[in-house]
């Protein structure tokens, strides 16, 4: 049975809940993982110690963990992680780190794992138009998609040891740039409401924004909308040539469901589709489909959700 090592997911200076999902994935590979917490303040690692199913926690403390630098992080983490299967989250930064760690150890990397079946790893290829199952013979780095594995429950009290790390940064942040939009990014959101060309004009995205503000969602868009309307930025694009997202809830409005778009959102936990065309392919993937124009459906949705949130 392989040793597993989970690299904790850190967001806003704390252990992100995804970390407990990574522990479940490690357990599915057959062992209680060591959790490595890359941090500048080792007290944040204590939260990792309460996740059930782990063997211990290493708080890996260094100033280099203030900003992501692929080379510096991989060097520091490699120095403390034993050999075994390294598990990270599958957001862009963590995938980058997984690839670095694998290359450093001359082992393979498997990205975006969505299931573990009898020790084999399943991940989407062609942006989810097909699935690939691989077997592991030896150590590897594995990134695991969020919102798929159940979180390992709280309640343990594993040992947390603090290790000082050193490493050299190969890149330097010169300045943080103000985001063009203050809205939540689709890549970071648990709920996404996206509009397609069926919205008629970019101005009508304000109706999506209103709902997004009500329920704390990000606003996304189809490629057709991004390509057609200048104000709809590529940062909002969900799909094969945009972002691949995996939220708890995805609401597609005026989106027909081109294969390009489905590829980026089909693994969302729940999908709502609002489209006036009852034959739109998006309905085949929706848990809840509403055949209606957005002008009819969105005000009702907005009112119902506002009532619920109050």
């Amino acid at each position, binding site marked *: 049975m392989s040793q597993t090592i989970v690299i904790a997911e850190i967001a806003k200076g704390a252990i992100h809940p995804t970390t407990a999902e990574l522990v479940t994935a490690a357990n599915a590979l057959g062992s209680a993982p060591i959790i490595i917490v890359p941090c500048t303040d080792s007290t944040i690692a204590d939260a990792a110690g309460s996740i059930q199913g782990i063997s211990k926690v290493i708080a890996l403390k260094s100033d280099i963990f203030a900003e992501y630098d692929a080379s510096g992080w991989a060097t520091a983490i490699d120095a403390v992680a034993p050999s075994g299967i390294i598990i990270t989250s599958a957001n*862009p930064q963590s995938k980058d780190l997984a690839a670095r760690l694998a290359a450093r150890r001359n082992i393979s990397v498997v990205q975006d794992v969505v299931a573990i079946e009898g020790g084999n790893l399943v991940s989407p290829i062609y942006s989810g138009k097909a699935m690939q199952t691989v077997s592991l013979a030896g150590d590897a780095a594995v990134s695991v998609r969020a919102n798929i594995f159940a979180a390992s429950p709280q309640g343990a009290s594993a040992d947390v040891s603090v290790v000082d790390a050193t490493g050299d940064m190969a890149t330097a*942040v010169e300045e943080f740039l103000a985001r063009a939009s203050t809205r939540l990014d689709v890549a970071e959101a648990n709920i996404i409401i996206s509009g397609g060309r069926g919205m008629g004009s970019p101005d009508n995205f304000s109706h999506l924004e209103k709902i997004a503000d009500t329920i704390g969602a990000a606003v996304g868009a189809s490629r057709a909308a991004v390509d057609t309307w200048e104000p709809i930025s590529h940062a909002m694009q969900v799909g094969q040539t945009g972002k691949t997202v995996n939220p708890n809830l995805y609401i597609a409005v005026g989106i027909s469901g081109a294969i390009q778009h489905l590829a980026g959102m089909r693994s969302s936990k729940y999908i709502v589709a609002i489209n006036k065309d009852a034959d739109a392919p998006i309905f085949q993937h929706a848990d809840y489909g509403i055949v209606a124009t957005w002008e009819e*459906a969105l005000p009702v949705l907005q009112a119902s959700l506002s009532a619920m949130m109050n």
Partner: protein
Amino acid sequence: MANIAVLVKQVPDTNARIVISDDRVDLSAVKMVMSPYDEFAVETALQHREASGGEVTAITVGGASADKVLKDAKAIGVDHIVRIDCDSYLDSNSLQSMISSVISEIGAEVVYCGKAAADTGAGSTGPGIAERLGWASVSNIISATFSDIISVVAPVQGGNARISVSLPAVISCDKGNVKVRKPNVKGIMQAKKAQVDVKSASPSSSSISIISHSLPPSKPAGKTYEGGAAAAEVAQLLRDEANVI
């Protein structure tokens, strides 16, 4: 004068339907194109050459049918085209070891690539070869300016940042605000005549093997409603049944 390399990969057209036969993806009837993000990598490499002088080498890995993606890169304006000859499946470890040995051989000091190939979507190659070469890397950049160091804009937690990268480095490109240039007639003529430099490299060991490819499991049919008023019921179900609101 910069020695610039750009990695390109041939993938199925992103609008293509993927079919499976005998537990493997069957690409025999699929149109192959340059992976979309690689187009941004080629454009960024050409802009780097224009800013600092030098030459751009496009590199791919594959059999003879992969020459087309190199010719496409040549038509857009790269100087040299190199194919690392290999027709079999390569995992990340084997692939990266071959590419990094060829990059060392041609003496490149900066490598551009797409943020991920449209087939695997993994995004492992850029950071992986950087690690093997002992270079810096920045992934998913949306713009770049060039001097002794390269200054890029890339996503960080909570937004974007301007990041300086000293060479040698590997830089992976997302779709930014750059407009990708299209080949002109002269470029296409030159590409036709261009010779592909075919190199061989020996892959390192692989610890993974493919068991099967399959179509994604289809979802059970959902509930469908007629008319906008149903949005009220759906909102309630999102709370009571799905527990997502």
